[in-house]
């Protein structure tokens, strides 16, 4: 068990690609994405009522556990994206239960 940071990002699903790229650029290779999140912020209500045909206007919730240094890098990279396109981000503390998975390498 060792300490990690939990990064929680809630943003429009249209920004998923940009946010995930930003995580990967900071070597954060572990994250999870929950889709179809609705919500509200100062900008108004976000619902999935208009998710018709090609449009997905609801939010995603991205959670990632990573080292404190990585978290810092992510926050720095993420800030301009959130400023331009909207979305919120929170940091908190957690403990990782290390699991030893065998991972093949080619």
């Amino acid at each position, binding site marked *: 068990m060792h300490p990690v940071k939990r990064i929680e990002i809630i943003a*429009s699903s*249209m920004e998923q690609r940009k946010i995930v790229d930003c995580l990967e650029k900071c070597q954060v290779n572990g994250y999870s994405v929950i889709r*179809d999140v609705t919500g509200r912020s100062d*900008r*108004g*209500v976000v*619902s*999935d*009522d*208009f*998710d*018709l*045909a*090609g*449009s997905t*206007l*609801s939010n995603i919730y991205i959670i990632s556990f990573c080292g404190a240094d990585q978290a810092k890098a992510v926050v720095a990279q993420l800030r301009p994206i959130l400023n*331009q*396109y*909207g979305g919120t981000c929170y940091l908190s503390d957690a403990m990782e239960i290390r699991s030893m998975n065998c991972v093949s390498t080619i």
Partner: protein
Amino acid sequence: MDSSLILSNLLNPPIIFFFMGMFAVFLKSDLEIPQPLPKLFSLYLLFAIGFKGGHEIHESGIDGEVALTLILAMVLAAIVPIYSFFILKLKLDVYNAAAIAAAYGSISAVTFVTASSFLNRLEIAYGGHMVAALALMESPAIVIGILLVRLFARDHRTHERIAWKEILREACLNGSVFLLIASLIAGIITSQEGWESLEPFTGEIFYGVLTFFLLDMGLVAARQFNDLRRGGSFLLGFSILMPLFNALLGIAIAALIGMSAGNALLFSVLTASASYIAVPAAMRLTVPEAKPSLYISMALALTFPFNIILGIPVYMAIINHFWA
């Protein structure tokens, strides 16, 4: 005017269920059609209408009238937002005026589908190229909307470059437009046999899916009513009078270039309808200063019901009157 058209439209299953959806919200019933079911219905409707349109183009070929219609459709989609903008700016700031203007320049596919099924019921023919017009009218209004903000918002973050590539992709290649165009092309290039094999799927159950989808649209539209109140009577008036004016403009142009009655109705419905899906998605990215609740509720909770309930039969009655 032929009021029987209005009545027969009201007693049509899709319209009845649209009302039922609205009632469900007003009576606080917990009826809901959860995602992705509405998405399934709308994907299906775009697929079916595109494929049928393509098949009809394949049958009839493309001629001068078709080309002229498509060009005029795009021109209208670019002009409507301009005069809408100046009217709206009387009461609103630049951002909201531009976003609403873009919505009214663009189109609502569901209104189009409802109008085409209205024509089917009356057994009035229309050309498959009207589906192409539908696809082409979505993007120009978005581009004009963004340009209007650029030109008139003095304090706009001019140092930021507009991500035109992303915006144009969103405007021209968003899922709805792509599926519509893809289905149109598929309908054009597929064999007679291929067309027939899909007929039970695209044809027979079409009306039922539309009915179900309008039930959901009724729920969604009614949920937007609260947001409407904030708009005030100016915007209320705009949501009804602007489509009416645009429809008359569409009918006039249709008469000028000698469209058939069916094509004229669809053309007027395209100009009259306002987008509540593609445009909001694009505006969110480019004009975040505009309030989505404003333009979505106007387009969806007023203009859309007005068009499918009263607009379509009224426009038809007018066309019947002049075309006769």
